[in-house]
């Protein structure tokens, strides 16, 4: 159970004070798939970095299963081990082979047992990366390296998965395939996922709850509960899918219009 309690973040960019986030209140239950959707520049990437304590909030605090961390209280180490972070660019180290890249979190968290190595190999096998496990990431396609990035974030068995527009750079077809694979992984492991995206269709397909954000200052303007029956190829043509997408579009649209007028 994770909660952000009126978190706000102030950046000093080019000598003027930029309020990136103001008064964010978010709640992610155990095993819940939550999406955050918003135009670029609404601070959605900052939220996920505050949860993972990469960026310190200017005010407000984050509570995860009773542990709180905020501006000057760092995140307890136990909590870090329970989080996996996936970037938009796969971010594999070119000097390590794919297998070593995937085992990197084990090395950092000091999980050295053979049990963990087998677990890593099992995940590599399941993700279909075993054919290129001993190659260097330079020769991988974008889809494969993003897949390796996902596996790397899950190798230390986290129960919170933080994903910052992971499939943003892929073309439509690979993105759909990766979305469905992510859904299968999420159903099997039952972890809670915070998924950041700017693609509204992808958010509606994946999420149980969607937070819609607006820019300047970054704030949550609406929350949407999505309950599609079956989340697969056919759900694209489900009438409710249309209704959710247009509702998000309108919410974001008239904010932009407001600003334009």
């Amino acid at each position: 159970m994770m909660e952000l309690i009126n978190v706000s973040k102030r950046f000093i960019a080019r000598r003027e004070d930029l309020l990136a986030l103001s008064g964010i209140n978010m709640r992610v239950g155990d095993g819940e798939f939550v999406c955050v959707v918003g135009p670029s520049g609404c601070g959605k990437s900052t939220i996920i970095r505050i949860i993972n304590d990469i960026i310190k909030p200017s005010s407000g605090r984050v509570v995860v299963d009773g542990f709180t961390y905020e501006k000057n209280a760092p995140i307890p180490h136990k909590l870090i081990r329970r989080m996996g972070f996936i970037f938009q660019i796969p971010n594999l180290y070119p000097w390590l082979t794919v297998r070593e890249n995937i085992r990197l979190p084990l090395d950092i968290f000091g999980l050295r047992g053979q049990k963990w190595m087998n677990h890593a190999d099992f995940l590599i096998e399941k993700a279909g990366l075993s054919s290129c496990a001993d190659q260097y990431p330079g020769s991988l396609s974008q889809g494969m390296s993003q897949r390796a990035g996902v596996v790397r974030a899950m190798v230390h068995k986290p129960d919170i998965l933080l994903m910052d527009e992971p499939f943003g750079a892929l073309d439509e077809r690979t993105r759909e395939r990766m979305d469905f694979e992510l859904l299968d992984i999420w159903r099997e492991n039952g972890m809670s996922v915070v998924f950041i995206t700017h693609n509204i269709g992808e958010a509606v397909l994946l999420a149980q709850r969607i937070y819609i954000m607006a820019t300047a200052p970054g704030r949550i303007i609406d929350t949407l509960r999505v309950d599609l029956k079956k989340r697969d190829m056919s759900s694209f043509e489900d009438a409710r899918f249309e209704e959710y997408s247009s509702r998000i579009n309108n919410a974001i649209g008239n904010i932009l219009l407001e600003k334009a007028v």
Partner: protein
Amino acid sequence: MEKTADEARTRLYLRDAFRHIAAQAALPVIALALWHVSVTWFDVPEWQIPSPPAIIKAMGADFRAILPHLITTYGNVLVGFTMAAAIGIALAIAIYFNASVGIAVTPFINLMCIMPLITLVPLLMLWLGFGSKAKLVAVVIQSFPIINLNALSAFAGVNPLRLELMESMKATKYQKMRCCILPDSLPGIFTGVKLAAVLALTAEVTSEITGGNAGLGARIIQYTQYMKMPQAFACVFYIAAFGLIFYQSLSFIERKLTKNY
């Protein structure tokens, strides 16, 4: 069919390799031939400009006389260079771990890079005598600032995304250095190392010419005083050959270490 394709490819590769070597060898061969022809044609006396065969004969005949000086020069440069590399990189790592060291040391090292430290050679000779101690100090002083500065700029110029991955796992400073910063900054470090190699050889030869009688530089001065030009040219050739081999081996090591970046 398969065999001929391979054959064609290897033949193509060989032809290309041959062309490559021919192009590289073209100018030196022409220069030597021109030199030889002009020397014999204008029958320039031996003591003014020796012809290439005369130099090669001198290299062979006087090898035993030149050998000790060869060893002192090569030895000084290699020992001085490795000490400088060790100091430079260790200092850079120390600055990474403790920024206040950086504040104290970096401005001076930046100045030491710019200032011609070759001017200290006579002073060092005065204090440390004409032996190889002064030469070693001159070589170290001349090359360690460049290595340190380039190592520092490589550490500062690490790809921020790769660092953010380490941040997301709350890696300790040591882990960040070992897993991400050091490998990523290898190309930068080698840039400084190769430049320092050039400067180390220059410092060594200059200090040999300035004082003392050990080392190839001093031998060149003596040979020219006694008008034994073939031996002088032989020493020049030994120094040039050492410089080239030293530089190319450093580049080779760099290519090996960073082949899959």
